């Protein structure tokens, strides 16, 4: 057996960077979506949603990150004043949209657990936290009203935990315990980390390893995870971008290479 060549850029020899695999995995979160408001926090999600909009999910409705919906697909980091706006979307209307279900979202998670609970509120006891974070924000309402996915750029046993400290975004077990009004529109579609892609497509809705990014082993993923992941016998690799997608990522959507600052190869 010959020794494979050294994987200098972590790309498995393809030249596709880890950050680009993350962007593709985030884009895939929006596959099949029609005319819904797509919101995405973090660089890889912001790139992914734009890529989906330019390719396989052309009806997605993007926001300017402030109080409007945008008509085109702006590159990362462009001056918001230059955007072509198509609708007014102040926060009050954002809530109406969230509650209507016409939205798909990738949020970030400081902690995520086995049944898909997410925490952005506080680390430690809520009453007197060790570290106060931003607060639950809209996570409770988002998760019981429309599909929600998470982006965790720093996969470790500190972010993938057995049980989150403060349930902000609601996971499957908690939604089921809360009853049919909580489960009716609840879906945690995907978790994308710097190591791989995860879902809850298991009989009891616990987290499953869906794919590993090329250059990452299954063992690396399980060792960086603070609970027992469901690992199928065959774990595929996250799909690579098509040449067209790679071109869009590199020259149209992120010519400044912001993605490589979030996830270094």
């Amino acid at each position, binding site marked *: 057996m010959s020794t494979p060549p050294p994987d200098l850029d972590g790309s498995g020899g393809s030249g596709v960077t880890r950050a680009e695999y993350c962007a593709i995995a985030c884009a895939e979160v929006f596959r099949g979506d029609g005319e819904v408001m797509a919101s995405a926090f973090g660089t890889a999600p912001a790139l992914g949603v734009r890529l989906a909009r330019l390719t396989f999910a052309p009806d997605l409705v993007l926001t300017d990150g402030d*109080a409007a919906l945008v008509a085109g697909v702006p590159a990362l980091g462009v001056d918001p004043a230059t955007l072509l706006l198509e609708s007014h979307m102040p926060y009050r209307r954002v809530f109406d949209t969230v509650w209507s279900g016409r939205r798909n979202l990738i949020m970030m998670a400081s902690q995520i657990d086995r049944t898909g609970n997410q925490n952005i509120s506080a680390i430690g006891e809520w009453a007197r936290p060790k570290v106060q974070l931003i607060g639950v924000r809209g996570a409770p309402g988002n998760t019981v009203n429309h599909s929600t996915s998470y982006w965790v750029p720093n996969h470790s046993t500190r972010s993938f935990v057995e049980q989150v400290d*403060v349930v902000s975004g609601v996971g499957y077990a908690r939604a089921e315990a809360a009853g049919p009004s909580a489960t009716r529109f609840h879906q945690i579609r995907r978790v994308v980390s710097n190591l791989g892609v995860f879902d809850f497509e298991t009989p009891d809705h616990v987290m499953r390893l869906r794919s590993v990014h090329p250059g990452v082993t299954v063992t690396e993923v399980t060792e960086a995870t603070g609970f027992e992941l469901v690992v199928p016998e065959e774990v595929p690799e996250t799909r690579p971008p098509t040449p067209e997608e790679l071109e869009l990522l590199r020259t149209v959507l992120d010519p400044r290479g912001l993605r490589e600052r979030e996830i270094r190869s």
Partner: protein
Amino acid sequence: MADKRITLDELIGELRSGMTIGIGGWGSRRKPMAAVRAILRSDLTDLTVVAYGGPDLGLLCAAGKVERAVYGFVTLDSIPTDPHFKAARQAGAIECTELDEGMFYLGLLAASQRIPFLPTRAGLGSDVMVVNPSLRTVVSPYEDGEELVAVPALRLDAALVHVNRADAKGSGQILGPDPFFDELFLGAADRRFVTTERIVTTDQFAAEGPLQTLCISRLLTDGVVETEGGAHFTACVPDYSRDEAFQKEYVAAAGDPEAWTAFRERFLEVDEPGYQLAVGQATVEREARVAAAKAAAGTQGAR
């Protein structure tokens, strides 16, 4: 027609210790900071502060004015958390009611409609229901039988909001892209105060912006205070954007007791004109430092 113009001091005179006070704006955007600074200088204490929180809540915590905070988040937008709020939470110094930010909206809406609660799916299954044990659910009286969260009305003793323009009779004009929930804060409150960049005559509104920017009616206001720069250092577009450099200095100062004392003496233990003057001087000093650093770098480059 009533002339509702008052001074900041008169506004503070309408407030009492122990009150529940709603503060408009969102994060580090269009916060009535001049009114917040006036509270910092006052002897008001034991306040319950209801806000889409930003530096308003942080500063009030730093000054020991807050008994309870009611919030969905506290953030400086370009900086994820406010250092003083964070410190107060981690020290267990304040009581808290943490809600989903949509629940918060419904709480204000219920209060403004004088009904006890509004139902929503938001909150179900989350720890919002655990850390606020007084929250209840309600079962739909119709065939669906859905069980939903009954968000209690967030009734306020007083509300403070900051707008771009207002007239003497108390109509307010918001020229930025998002009116946030200011209208509902005012609607939910017994005493309603608007601070504004500029008081204009009613006939000047039309030249400033279209009809839909006139989103605060005088039905909702008791007093109007003209405070130019009154949202500083938060954003008040299109009049000014967030003073990011100042906000960074605020955060840096919070991390060091000596620096915080200096910040407080320079910017907070002065009246509002004194604050605006100090901010102007600090900006000039910062620009001079940047220019000097650039010049030094240029000299090095030439060597």
